[in-house]
């Protein structure tokens, strides 16, 4: 053994918006808090969020948190837990104003209040008319949030471990979480970080798909670690496809573009969203727009030589609006699509964007799993927040701008729960199990000793192609069941990946091989959960079962990696204070 041990009150894996917000609660309450990140925290993927963060501030038009809640429940296609959704929407105004007080530079109205822009799925009066609810800092909302939170953490003495990769979760004989193992990239050494409480805020895993808006870093490490530690993953069949990724590159064109008046056209020059969603048109929720676009392509009205994309038209907004309100978008279009949107429309396709599922938590940020008769019993010492967690507020489909909100609301809530847990229940550290680092050391030893293996990049490409071909926007039984077989074959190949560079120090080949071991767990979970769900709900559109089936399927899936099996648990239908919002058909 001889693995060095370091001790903290709290260890947070992930320095994006969720991890930083949670860390702040802990550090400010005087607890010794470590934040681990694979990259410098302000380079976390949160930096990519352009569109904004939602809150019913009502600065531009009348708005109420109850309407925000309604939109979120409806957006989730009634798979979201209504207690968690109420919690988030009620807290939203306070959370945004807190960020403002922290110094986040929001866009403002002339009267000095925060400007709010329109965004897909945001409405007044339970679906009646669009409302301006998204708060933004130009098109750098995520960047501004990260910098603001990072500075606050530095002030609060949070200890950052930058370029440290968490490898595995440490659970003791009671199943309680007592720390993580982690690789310091600089030295190649493995450490044990011993903690009273651990939070995962490791972000998404969109790199399981070939067409993805996610940066390369989104490899689902937190989910892989959970699967290996026997913790199930919730609702992994639900992946949001952003309707407007640049065809061929994946780079995202924010919904804000449609909010400002951009429209989608098919090869006949028709604004087809008027047919699918007469009220909300191009601003209908993402899954709906993505499927409408696919439908146009499937019916032969796609554009380009292969008729495989549609067009996003902006030129009618005029150069001034485009340059002022949407500056980044013009550069993206020029660089990655080769068109200037002031003159020409941008070719776009639905592209994997966001993981609705993840580590099962409640609205307090506690990780909860079935034990005995209780479908949601707490895993002591373990918390999760942000995209890697499933609270579940996004259900089967996330509303735009609700993710940044999720990060700060549930980051803070999880931080508060950890402070309470550490102060009330954990006067001292639980013992580390004798084999605490064995799994991680064995994984590294396997990689170092592997001969006749395959290249990491080749196996990763095989995984991405399989997931893309079998579990993208349109799904059917035949495709999914083939996908289940194929992805498990790819998983066997992951066990034999080989790296040429066996050195210790800054071995990025090793890091990528370890990341692939996490990605594949997410990919297998996705295929198995998607194959099992025989209905269509939100982002899971099943051609053989085109309708939502609330009788049978209004339930969350839980995927267990050890036996590659599923179980299910009920959706929470009791909000905290208001009436249940009963299911309706989603029309726009």
């Amino acid at each position: 053994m001889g693995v060095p041990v370091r001790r903290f009150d709290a260890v947070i894996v992930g320095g994006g918006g969720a991890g930083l917000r949670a860390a702040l609660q802990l550090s400010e309450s005087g607890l010794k808090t470590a934040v681990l990140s694979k990259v410098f925290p302000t380079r976390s993927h949160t930096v990519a969020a352009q569109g904004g963060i939602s809150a019913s501030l009502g600065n531009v038009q009348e708005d109420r948190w109850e309407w925000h809640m309604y939109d979120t429940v409806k957006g989730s296609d009634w798979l979201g837990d209504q207690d968690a959704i109420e919690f988030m929407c009620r807290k939203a105004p306070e959370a945004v104003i807190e960020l403002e007080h922290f110094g986040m530079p929001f866009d403002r109205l002339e009267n000095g209040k925060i400007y709010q822009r329109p965004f897909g799925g945001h409405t007044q009066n339970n679906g009646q008319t669009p409302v301006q609810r998204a708060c933004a800092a130009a098109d750098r909302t995520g960047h501004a949030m990260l910098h603001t939170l990072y500075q606050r953490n530095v002030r609060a003495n949070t200890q950052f471990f930058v370029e440290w990769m968490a490898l595995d979760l440490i659970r003791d004989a009671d199943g309680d979480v007592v720390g993580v193992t982690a690789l310091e990239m600089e030295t190649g050494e493995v450490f044990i970080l011993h903690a009273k409480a651990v939070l995962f805020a490791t972000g998404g895993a969109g790199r399981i798909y070939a067409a993805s808006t996610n940066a390369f870093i989104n490899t689902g490490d937190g989910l892989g670690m959970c699967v290996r530690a026997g913790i199930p993953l919730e609702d992994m069949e639900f992946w949001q496809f952003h309707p407007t990724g640049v065809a061929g590159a994946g780079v995202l064109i924010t919904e804000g573009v449609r909010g400002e008046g951009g429209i989608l056209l098919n090869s006949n020059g028709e604004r087809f969203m008027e047919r699918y969603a007469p009220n909300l048109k191009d601003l209908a929720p993402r899954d709906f727009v993505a499927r409408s676009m696919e439908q146009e392509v499937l019916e032969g009205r796609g554009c380009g030589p292969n008729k495989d994309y549609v067009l996003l038209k902006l030129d009618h907004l005029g150069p001034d609006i485009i340059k002022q309100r949407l500056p980044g978008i013009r550069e993206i279009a020029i660089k990655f699509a080769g068109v200037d949107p002031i003159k020409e429309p941008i070719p776009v396709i639905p592209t994997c964007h966001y993981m609705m599922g993840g580590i099962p938590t409640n609205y307090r940020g506690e990780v909860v799993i079935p034990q005995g008769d209780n479908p949601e019993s707490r895993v002591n010492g373990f918390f999760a927040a942000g995209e890697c967690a499933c609270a579940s507020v996004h259900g089967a489909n996330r509303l735009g701008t609700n993710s940044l909100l999720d990060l700060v609301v549930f980051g803070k809530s999880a931080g508060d729960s950890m402070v309470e847990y550490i102060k009330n229940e954990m006067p001292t550290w639980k013992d580390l199990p004798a084999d605490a680092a064995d799994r991680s050391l064995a994984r590294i030893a396997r990689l170092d000793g592997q001969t006749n293996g395959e290249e990491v990049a080749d196996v990763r490409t095989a995984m991405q192609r399989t997931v893309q071909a079998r579990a993208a926007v349109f799904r059917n039984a035949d495709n999914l069941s083939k996908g289940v077989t194929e992805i498990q074959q790819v998983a066997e190949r992951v066990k034999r990946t080989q790296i040429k560079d066996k050195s210790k120090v800054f071995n990025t080949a090793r890091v990528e091989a370890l990341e692939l071991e996490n990605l594949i767990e997410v990919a297998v979970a996705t295929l198995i959960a998607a194959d099992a769900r025989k209905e269509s709900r939100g982002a899971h559109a099943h051609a053989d079962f085109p309708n939502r089936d609330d009788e049978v399927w209004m339930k969350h899936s839980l995927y267990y990696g050890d036996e590659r099996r599923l179980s299910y648990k009920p959706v929470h239908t009791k909000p905290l204070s208001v009436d249940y919002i009963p299911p309706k058909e989603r029309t726009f």
Partner: protein
Amino acid sequence: MTDFDPVELKRIRWHSRRGLLELDLVLERFLAQRFDSLSPAEMSAYKALLELPDNDFLDVVNGKTDLDDPSIMQIVEILRAI
């Protein structure tokens, strides 16, 4: 490349992993096509560029803004063309 030890080169490669897909796509091509043949001066310039926050870096790569240092701009021109 004598001025940079192999560990430093690996570190620079890792620092080419960014929070924005746009940068990942451009830098991936750059690492594959150009990185190994950079002169020590060019490598220093690239390293300095990596210190920029992601959004500023992307603005530079997209040609929206320029930087003062001519040696860094040489690398920027390579990135813009790639």
